């Protein structure tokens, strides 16, 4: 062994092994067999609340103020933790795995937690007035096996954003109403040259399911029909083929849409004035109004395949509550305060999202810029978050959908695989 003695080599190797084991074990941890026995005492003196970070500017501001109000009002300490969307899945999973879940968790999925029996239902922790104030579409999406476990914290709806200057230059009079018009308009914008892009299409892993859903719904398709998975239905295959053709045949998208994410790929193309159209939502609108004022934009309902009434795709996230001994009362008070008009609506306004309560709908109705979304909110189309299988399918869609729209991609076989995953229970 040359200059280094054998014994020392073994010591070194052992050290290295330890290091590697330590690194690899980061994903490990103890089991959470006793998740609902932790806590203790008759009434919790503090609760741990894990919140997803919606924006650097506003999330912490609101929640710190909320924490103070809550503590002053109840005398219970609120242990606040704000985690970025990139890490929150992993952190939540690690907390549960270590038998130490938070008391309240903010996430875009709840059904698997409900299935594992970890959550309080609305009967346990929501007051009647809060329950009746929630918009029925969100009550439905938050209900697993006839009990509500996912309490909506805010919502968003998607619509078609278009660049008015580019439309004028391309001599397009009004936003497209059908898919044919959409392709024709996108071609006109693309033909302007100078790096202009007809449609910015994000089908990368970040949120492929959202981009696909909105097109799917506007072709009369759905993830589930009458309680059965219909991911590879003829309409859905047709939709995905249409999305693939946009880049491979019509050539009206940016480079490589299957590998473009929304926030760091597609949005910058629109806010820099390069893209003619994009599917956007409230926070993008907020950015355009404050940071990118030189982009003159309009918002229109999504075009549909055959020109029928446009469908709106919506998203809501949830604030679920974990069953732990003694924390029920503190949690009840948390929701009572959260769903108070001056709290929930302040929060939603500051983040640029849409309300989840009827009283919120009323309060927001005066805002003209939100009209296009608010009108559709009660009839909004959501993804099947009430099915625990969706939690896995969503991940499969995010990871695999992009491969279908590459030049060699095969929409039919990708959707067939997803259908198989879904039928196997996710």
């Amino acid at each position: 062994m040359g200059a280094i003695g054998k014994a020392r080599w073994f010591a070194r190797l052992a050290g290295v092994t330890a290091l590697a084991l330590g690194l690899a074990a980061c994903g490990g941890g103890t089991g959470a067999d006793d998740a609902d026995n932790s806590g203790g005492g008759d009434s919790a003196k503090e609760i741990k609340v894990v919140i997803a970070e919606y924006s650097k500017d506003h999330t912490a501001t609101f929640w710190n103020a909320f924490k103070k109000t809550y503590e002053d009002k109840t005398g219970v300490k609120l242990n606040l933790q704000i985690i970025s969307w990139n890490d929150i899945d992993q952190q939540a999973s690690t907390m549960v795995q270590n038998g130490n879940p938070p008391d309240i968790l903010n996430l875009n999925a709840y059904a698997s937690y409900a299935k594992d029996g970890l959550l309080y239902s609305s009967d346990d922790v929501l007051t009647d007035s809060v329950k009746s104030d929630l918009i029925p579409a969100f009550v439905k999406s938050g209900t697993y096996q006839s009990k509500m476990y996912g309490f909506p914290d805010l919502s968003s709806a998607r619509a078609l954003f278009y660049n008015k200057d580019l439309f004028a230059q391309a001599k397009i009079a009004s936003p497209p109403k059908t898919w044919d018009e959409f392709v024709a308009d996108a071609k006109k914008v693309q033909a302007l040259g100078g790096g202009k892009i007809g449609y910015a299409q994000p089908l990368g892993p970040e949120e492929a399911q959202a981009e696909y859903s909105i097109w799917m719904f506007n072709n009369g398709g759905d993830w589930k029909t009458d309680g059965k998975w219909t991911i590879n239905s003829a309409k859905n295959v047709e939709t995905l083929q249409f999305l693939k053709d946009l880049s491979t045949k019509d050539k009206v998208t940016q480079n490589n849409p299957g590998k473009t994410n929304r926030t760091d790929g597609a949005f910058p193309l629109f806010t820099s004035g390069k893209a003619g159209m994009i599917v956007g939502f409230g926070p993008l609108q907020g950015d355009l109004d404050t940071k990118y004022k030189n982009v003159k934009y309009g918002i229109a309902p999504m075009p549909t395949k055959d020109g029928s009434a446009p469908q709106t795709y919506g998203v809501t996230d949830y604030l679920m509550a974990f069953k732990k001994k003694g924390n029920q009362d503190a949690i009840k008070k948390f929701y009572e305060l959260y769903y108070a008009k001056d709290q929930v609506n302040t929060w939603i306004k500051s983040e640029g999202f849409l309300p989840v309560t009827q009283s919120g709908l009323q309060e927001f109705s005066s805002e003209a810029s939100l009209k296009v979304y608010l009108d559709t909110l009660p009839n909004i189309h959501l993804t099947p978050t009430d099915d625990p299988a969706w939690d896995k399918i969503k991940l499969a869609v995010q990871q695999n959908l992009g491969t279908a729209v590459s030049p060699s991609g095969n929409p039919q076989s990708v959707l067939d695989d997803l259908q198989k995953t879904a039928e196997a229970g996710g």
Partner: protein
Amino acid sequence: MLIFGVVIYPAIELVRASTGEYSITGLRRGSNGVENYANVLSHPALGTVLVNTLIWVVAVVAITILLSLGLAQFLSKDFWGRRAVRWAVLVPWAASLVITSRLFTLIFDYYHGILNVLLTKLHIISEPVDWLGDDTWTMPSMILVGVLVSIPFTAYVLLAGLNAIPGEVHEAARIDGAGPWQAWRRVTLPLLRPALLVSAVLNMIYVFNSFPIIWTLNDRNPGYTHDTTITFMYKLAFKSADRDVGMSAAAGVFNVLLILVAVVLYLRLVKWREEDA
């Protein structure tokens, strides 16, 4: 106590996790024996991931050591501003890997990245290249970053090795009539052997386990086309449809074994060549 806390306990937990059945939420439902291991071995992406890992480790380590040899040689010379250059070389090492990787996603960006602008202006390429999206360029782009962040450490280990070689040896070689290349090959290189060995082994392990570069530069790409074992593990636990902590832990056990085998093989190879010579 320390050894127990840092070494044995995590190892036990890793093995325990690898034999458990976990729900998607991270809840342990019980034990399922070796099923997690079987699931990892039968995973359709495993072949791709292993090949990627091999390419990634071998390319980064080999190129790093080659370039570092030259750099160390250069830094050992006495020249004006040597101190400044030595400091400058250290910077990429001191910077957080995540930040460096994030910076490179901006440099490599198809539309906004400066690399495409630069190469187009210099007429090296006529059309922008999708460095991180085009499958032929993704791995080379990641290797470039991997090499860049590995050079400082390696160059310094080799520099220390060079400095430890007494000047008389070179003098003797010169007197014996050896040319510069011959002196380097016959005298310097053999004396650098311990330093080369250390830097190769440490780099192998370090590069093998390097998560931030692959993760950050590859996160926009669907599927597993450019994943190595370490990002594969992470996706198994948190991003893929499997979303299974137990399976990820099993992959983690394989990962450790794989490193051990690679290092032992390398040391064997080195030893064998030494005896041969």
